[in-house]
Each structure stands twice: as C-alpha cells, then as structure tokens.
C-alpha cells in the first residue's frame, strides 16, 4: 500500500528510466506507440513541474525522426504514419515550444485529408472510423492553428460527432455504439475545442482592424445535454472512490481523466467525491518503482501515470501545474500558443 501523498520524485525517476528497459519483451512490443509514450511521460513531467527531467533536444530530434515525408508521424522510427501519433507529435512539439521545426501546413493537410464525406475522420488510409480520430484531428488542427477551412469542414465534423450521441447523453465510437467515457472525452473535448469564428462578409470589410477581426466565436457545447451526461458521468464513481468507464464495470485510474475532464468541461466536477478520488489515485501509485497503475496493487505504466497525475491536477492537488481538460496539456502551453481559455 502506498503513502497518501504524491511521490513526485519517484515518478520522475520512473519516467526517466522508461527508455532503459530494453531487455523486456513489453518494451519492444510497445514500440509501435512509443511516440504516445513520450507524450504521456513528457506531459506527466511538465505537470509535476520537472520540465527538464528529459533532454528536450533529444525528445525533439526523436519526434522529428518519426516524421514521414507527408507531414504525418508514425508511432516510432520505421513505423507507418497514423493520426494517433501525429497528435502526440504535435502535442510534444507544442509543449517544448518547437512547432517551428515542422511545416504546420503540411501536417494540417495530412490531418484534413483523413476527413470523410460524412465529416468523420479515419485514423489512416485504411479508413477505420472512430470518434477518437475526430478528437485527434480537431485537437491537432487547433494546436497547429489550422482549425479552419480549407483544412477541415468543422460543421460536418460536428454533425458526425453529434450522430454518435446516445440516450444517456454519452457518446460512442461510431453512430449506434455504446457510450464509453473514453469516447465521451473525445466527443465533448472536440466540441469544446471547435470554435466557430464568424468572419465579416467581404463587402462589409473596412480598413478598420476591429471590423476585420473575428466577430464572435463559440464552441459547440450547445449540443451536449449537460445535466443528463454529467449525472451519468458522476455515476461512474464507485464506493472505493475510483471511476469506471461504463455502468457496472471496474474502476480504473485512466477514467480519472476521461470522466473528470468531461465533468470539468461541463462545470460539474463537484458532483463527485473529489477527496475519495484523490485517495484512489494516490493508492494506485507504485511505491517501489514509481508510476501509477490502473488500480491499487497492479503494475504501473506511463499511460496511467499521466492520467492519474492529470486527474490530480484537475482535482486541485497541491504542487501540480494546472492542466487543460480539453487538451490534456499544461494550461500555460496553450496560453503561449494563444489558444483561448475554457470560457
């Protein structure tokens, strides 16, 4: 069992050591998502306020080595391009203030090329459709500063997400699929990220700068049934304080992020017991090796480490860098990029 405080130093050394486990089979079998892993580790370190625990230049060079000639990124060097890794790459470059190392237009064009006629996004050229990819695409374009025509048809993207809404107010992976907290994060996050910008019609443009500025911008949370969904999400908390992803399933630390970030976007974090969730996450720490597991007593990994720490940050745990619930990135990174705060 663990101490009831966040073991920051141990987690930092755990993340630093991740690249040194080359004898284990898991290290190699997880190669295809190494770029995700770097995002999870790096973001954890930034939220823990240990930004310099990894060598930024090394990380940037590694990310660039995963880049394909079309501007997309693979999960590792020698692996094919996919939207999942392209988002991670862009997130890492944003966090390290190195977005100028890539051709943003080219990467945005790749992302946009995955949009289908119905507004959905495929993960790669083999056309698997999933609202996870809608989120990846819209988040990525927003970070690149390209969330606009001609790169993407926002209206259609929104329509597709909306078609995945279920009777419980939640969202599934495709129309008809069951609500799942991970998919709900993707859909609610995407609707919170897409910002409509109304540009003054051409004939009305003047030389005045104010008049040329965007008129009004809004996210699309009007499509979310806030109370219905937030109540369903609040019911994900179990007696032990942990959150599950669907009714009658087991609790898991990663839902501290998927559920909590949505409750935060919807302004309803107070509908669950925050203190019990903090304790649940802290109890899932591995006091020997560092890192956070899916639940107390299990083996830790970098994926749950990030979502545990990010959850604690949203819960206001002391000493952590504030995290943005829409992007799962430090708030200050988004401010530097000029991305507007959550209203």
């Amino acid at each position, binding site marked *: 069992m663990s101490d009831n405080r966040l073991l920051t130093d141990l987690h930092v050394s755990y993340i630093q050591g991740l690249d040194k486990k080359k004898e284990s089979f898991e290290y*190699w079998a997880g190669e295809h998502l190494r770029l995700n892993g770097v995002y999870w580790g790096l973001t954890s370190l930034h939220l823990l306020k240990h930004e310099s625990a990894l060598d930024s230049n090394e990380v940037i060079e590694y990310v660039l080595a995963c880049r394909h000639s079309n501007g997309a990124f693979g999960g590792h060097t020698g692996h094919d391009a996919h939207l999942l890794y392209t988002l991670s790459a862009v997130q890492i470059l944003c966090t390290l203030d190195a977005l100028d190392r890539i051709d943003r237009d080219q990467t945005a064009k790749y992302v946009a090329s995955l949009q289908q006629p119905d507004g959905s996004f495929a993960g790669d050229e083999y056309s698997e459709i999933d609202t996870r990819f809608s989120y990846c695409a819209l988040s990525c374009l927003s970070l690149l500063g390209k969330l606009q025509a001609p790169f993407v048809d926002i209206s259609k993207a*929104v329509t597709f997400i909306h*078609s995945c809404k279920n009777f419980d107010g939640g969202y599934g992976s495709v*129309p008809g699929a069951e609500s*799942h907290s991970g998919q709900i994060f993707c859909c609610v996050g995407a609707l919170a990220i897409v910002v409509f910008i109304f540009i003054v019609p051409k004939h009305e443009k003047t030389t005045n700068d104010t008049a040329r500025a965007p008129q009004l911008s*809004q996210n*699309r949370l*009007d499509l979310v049934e806030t109370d219905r969904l937030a109540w369903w999400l609040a019911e994900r908390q179990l007696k032990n304080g942990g959150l599950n992803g669907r009714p*009658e399933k087991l609790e898991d630390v990663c839902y501290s992020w998927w559920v909590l970030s949505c409750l935060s976007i919807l302004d309803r974090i107070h509908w669950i*017991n925050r203190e019990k969730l903090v304790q649940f996450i802290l109890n899932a720490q591995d006091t020997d090796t560092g890192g956070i597991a899916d639940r107390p007593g299990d083996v830790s990994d970098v994926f749950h480490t990030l979502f545990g720490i990010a959850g604690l940050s949203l819960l206001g745990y002391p000493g952590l860098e504030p995290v943005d619930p829409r992007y799962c990135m430090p708030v200050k990174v988004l401010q530097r990029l000029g991305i507007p705060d959550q209203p």
Partner: protein
Amino acid sequence: MADGSHNQKKSSAVLSAAETEANKRRTKTYIDKWAVMATMRDSADPFDASALDATQAVVELNPDAYTVWNYRRRILTHLFATSHSDEKDRVLLAKQDLKLLEKLIRIHPKSYWLWVHRRWVLENMSSPDWDRELLISQMMLDLDARNFHGWSYRRSVLKSAGRLQDLAEIEYTNAKIRQNFSNYSAWHYRSRLIPSVTGEDFEQRDSIIQKDFETVRNAIYTEPADQSAWLYQRWLLGQKPSNLIVEWAIAEHASDAKFIVIVCFNAPVSMNPSKVILSDAKYRIERTATNSPIMPSHVVSFSIIAPQADTPLKLEICLKPDCFNLPTSNSQLEEISLSFDGTRSAMRVEGTITTQSNAQTDNTLQMNQYQPLEIWERELASIRELAEFEPESKWPWMALVHCLKELGGENNVREAISVCDTLERLDPDRKNYYRDTISDFHWNQTLDKLTNPSTSESIGIPPMPWKLTRIPTPHLLPPILTILNLANHALTDIPVFPCLRELNVDNNLIQIVRRLDMMPLLQRLSIKKNMLKSLRGLEGGKGLKEVWVSENDSVVEQVDVERVLIHY
C-alpha cells in the same frame, strides 16, 4: 483507450529466473522476426510470396504492430491483383487471414488493429460470409458480454450485410439481457434498435416498449442496485421532443442610436448574428469584435444601430435558419420573426425552428417516444412500492425523483425534494448533485410564482427554506425584472441573468467572476462576502458601472477596469 497495462497484478509481475530467461528469449525472437520483416519490406521485391509469412511471424507475437498489418494489406492487394487475381485464389488467401485473425482475436479480444484488419479482409472479398461473421461476434459476446469491440463488430457486420434493421436483433438483445440483467451494452443497443427496426410501425414499437417495461421491472426487482435497467427505464419513459422557439426578446436602448437586442431561446444555440435580417435597411447590425470564445447559451445578444439617435426601435427582425449552426443539414427549418414596435419587449414572436438537437441525425434513429402521463403514473406507483420495500437502495429513489419531476405539481415537487434529502444521506459521494437538484426545484417554483409579475421592475425573490446552490434557468426570469437580490445563498458562480441591470449576490460561495459578457445590461453588481481571489473577468461586463467586492476571503487585489467604480 486501452494502451497501458490493465489488470496486471503486481504480485504476478515479479518474474522467476526461468521466466526472466523466457522473456529475454521472446524479446530476441521478436527483434529477429521484425528485422526479417523490415528487410523484406524495404527490399526491391517487397511482395515476394514469403512476405506474408514474415508479417505473420511478427503479428503472432504482437497483434498491435499496425505497421506490419499495413504491410500485409499491401502484399495482399498486390497478390489479389497479380498471381491470385482468380476468384478461387482470392478467397483462399482471404480465408487464410480470417483464420489467423480468429486465432489472434481469441487471445487478444481487445486489440483494435485485429478488428480493423478483419473488416478490411472482408471488404476485399466479393461475397463474404456474413452469417459466419455474426457467429464470431456472438462467440466474442459469449466470452465477454460487454466487449464493445464485439458489439461494434456485430453492428458493422449487420450494416455490411444490409441487416441493421433485422427483427432478429431485437430477439438477440433480449436473450443477452435475460442471461444477465446487468448487460448495459445490450440495453443500450435496444435503444438504437427499436426505433430503427419498427420504423413507422408505432403499434409494433409500443408492444415492444410495453414488454420492455415489464423486463425492466423484473430486472430492478431482482437487483435494485444495478444501474443498467434503471438507466434504460429512462429511455423507455422518453423525453419530450422540443423544437427551437424564442422564449422572449427585448430591445434595450443603450446609447444614442444604439439598441441591444436580446433573444432568449428554449435551448442553447450557436448563432451567427451577422446573418440576422432586418426589415428596414436604414437600421444595421453593429459588429463588435470579441477575442474570447463564449459559451453557446440560451441567450443571444447583438446591437442594432438606428438611423438616428433617440428614435424608438420599430422594425422586424428575421432569424433565418442559416443564422444557426445546426448539427444537421436536413433539419426542417422555418424562420423566426420578431417584431418591435418601439417598446422594450418584442410585440410578436412567430415561428419555430425544428432542430434535431436532442436527436440523432439518422431519421429512423431519432424517434423519441414520449410516454403518456398515465404510463409515468403507472411506473411511479411501481417504483414507489419498490422504494418502500428497499429503502436503503438509492436507485428506486432516483427513479422516483425523475418521475415526480416530470409529473410536476406542488405535492410531487414537495415529495421530490424530500426524496433528494434521503438520497443525500444514502449517497453522500454525490451530495452536491442532490443539492443542485433541490435548488432547481426551489428555483422553478419561484419562477412559477413570477410568471405574472406586476409592472414593478424589482421583485425580491420570496424567502426560501433552502440555500440555492445554482440557478438552473436564469434566462427564464421574466425580462421585465431588472433588479434582483440573491444574497445569502450558496451559489458558486454568478448566474447569467441576461436582462438584469442590478444583481446582488452578497454572502454566497463565488470564487471567480466570469461570463459577464453574457449580461450586456448589467450596470451594478454586488458581490460582497464571497470567496473571490481575483477580479479577473470584471472587464467582461461591458455595461458595468459599479461593483462592490468587500469582505471576500482573501483581500482582492485592486484592479483598474475602465468605466467601473469598484468599492473595495
């Protein structure tokens, strides 16, 4: 979502010497097999007949190696076009992959990439055996009735086979639910299936729904603590369909020739005021730049400039469908017109916009049956009985509140409030949800009493036996009221009352000032004795003149906001 290790116990992670050795050997094999595959892939002849074996050797060790599946698809595409272009040969090749996948899916039922490849193979066959695929999904769901890959695969197979509206699916989900009432996946599926299968046959639909009420009753009596059937019961009872309508609209004289028009809808909207059409070309809509995104809300405001100063606003405002960012292009749309005759309130509001904001885009899926009140009464009686029988179980009480709220009336509301008290005791983890719900009841009762306000602009909210924790529908406050006192409650946020000129929220629990941009008429705000730490956000109130902020938690740092007199 499952990219970390799940459910691996720490005790089992400590490897014996022999296991460590085996793990090392496995690692070496994997690295070697990958190298063979990669060499072949990057060679001059990547589609050699042995390439399939090279990819198989890797994915058997690691089914998530998506790059290798991609390569395998390229090989297959090449073979289909060349040496195996013959139908018989194609089928042979495809079946070989289906067999491999079946083996791997049994071991790794939650690997996304396996299901992706399986769909790809089937899509590349001229006559895939969809019945067999349904059996496979059935087998997966027999092993794990909640595996969402299994359910998604089932729906994708049915879609490809053109059988999404198959009546047999109703029977299949029935069987799954009978096996285990706790199968939320199956209950969910019914909520999509029933409307799509029955289509316009409302009689058939109703007969299924009425039987489902019985099944739900069985489920909740068997296991009242299981949320699955309780959630589904809410779907059975339905939701009132609603079209977009204007609740009210006002035009407030701001300065000289400028009027602020505020339009309140019955649902949050995303609207583009620059597309609003004015009946008189001498008037124009003022563009104001804003840098921060605002929340889509029930209320939209924009400014109209009259041709000359100090003339009353007399014109018609037309909101055409293209003013709204609606989720679908096939919404049935009319237009809304607002006519102003020089007084503050719009004289006439006409038209509705039929949106699908609570529904699905697919017409057959959007049918949202709303049960008649006698069905609600019937369910209420049955739930009440169960609640009395199982007083310590929270779900019957939850359902009771849901029904009482829908049925309304003073007695029902009183009972609902007392049930929420019980719920707060039974389920303290979600106490703030129940407190917000009680606040909603009290607020709505107050609003009911205000529906016919006198001409007086300031009406105090009558004393309440409850400290309000939130205001659910501030936009429904009659727009004739311009001064409101909400001191001494437990609000954590400043409620957005679009038409108020003066608001007092002294002695609440407010920590931040925000969304004042949504209260364009607000001039005076008293926010003493709260928990403010900063005054950031005050600048959002464009009409603000005077603010009181004394007695807050920590002394608020002094700020200068143009035009605003701040009393510290």
